[in-house]
């Protein structure tokens, strides 16, 4: 069993003080980040009495096509269609996709199958999404 000397006690108290300081600092930066996200509107926490409405996923609007830059090569076409509320065949027709895995295939994987550079193919996907409002029926 450990025998605590005065030295051990000093180390112990110092460690607690350091960990408390670390906690204080971490909490400060975390709350500063939280305030920044809430003030910028990114953190979609509703300022209303009806907190439970926040969990109604059907009420969430789709991502606007102006934010097509959020798309990444790891995303699947199924996810992109859902997130941007696109018809299932829209990207298939616009990009002339014949792969049977569509839409359950990642953008990067499809690009590699077609021997295309993933980043270049990603840009064509983003461009196709930006054009959707002009093509979509009302």
């Amino acid at each position, binding site marked *: *069993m*450990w025998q*605590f000397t005065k030295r051990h006690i000093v180390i*112990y108290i110092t*460690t*607690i003080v350091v*960990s*408390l300081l*670390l*906690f204080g*600092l*971490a*909490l400060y*930066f*975390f709350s500063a*980040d*939280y305030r920044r*996200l809430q003030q910028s509107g*990114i*953190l*979609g*926490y509703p300022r209303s009495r009806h907190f439970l409405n*926040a*969990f109604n*996923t*059907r009420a*969430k609007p*789709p*991502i606007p096509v102006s*934010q097509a830059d*959020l798309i*990444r*090569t*790891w*995303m*699947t076409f*199924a*996810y992109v269609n*859902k*997130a941007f509320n696109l018809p299932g065949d829209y990207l298939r027709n616009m990009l002339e996709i014949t792969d049977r895995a569509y839409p*359950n295939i*990642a953008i*990067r*994987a499809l690009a590699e199958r077609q021997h295309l550079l993933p980043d270049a193919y990603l840009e064509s996907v983003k461009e196709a999404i930006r054009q959707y409002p002009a093509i979509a029926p009302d």
Partner: protein
Amino acid sequence: MVFFSFFLTFLLLYKYAALFVIAFVAALILPIPASTTLAAAGAFSSQGYLDLGTVLIVAFMANVAGDIAGYLLARRYGEAVLYKIGFRRVLESSRYRALREYFLSSQWSLIYFSRFLTQIGPAVNLLSGLVKVPYKIFFLFDVLGEASYVLLYALAGYFLGSQWENNVDFFIKAALVMLSLGLTVTLIQAGIYRRKTRH
């Protein structure tokens, strides 16, 4: 990023099955990015691709299952395996006994707060089994810890929505808060235990 991208694509393709596998394996033994994957699942739920309730339940069950599996394996076979591979001297040393005593003195805080850090969670599970933390104590604080962890990360991802990937440092800061709080509580708990055993 390529490494992490693999898990995100896996999650998008296989949804809840992928979430279960990633969370279970991370809780059991492998240091894979389960926390960020959970936050991503929360974000995908905000867009309607996944259901938030199902994400919470699946992630919670997978984490608890992985923790308990690691704990039970270590409890049942841990010492025997360590003896066999030549750790007899370590297990019979005074340092190991002191470590064991320290662990048992602050078990609940160690178990609870280590749920927020997927890198050390598996080690705490194995150590809990090795030093034979009582079943009920391990299960209770594991369940409480995993419930808190799953709610924190999944809901943070949910409310960040499509902007979650640009704000990954928000999750890192949350983990630092829990790490430092856990360290403080564990130290205080060990000190109180030490005072009690001296008297």
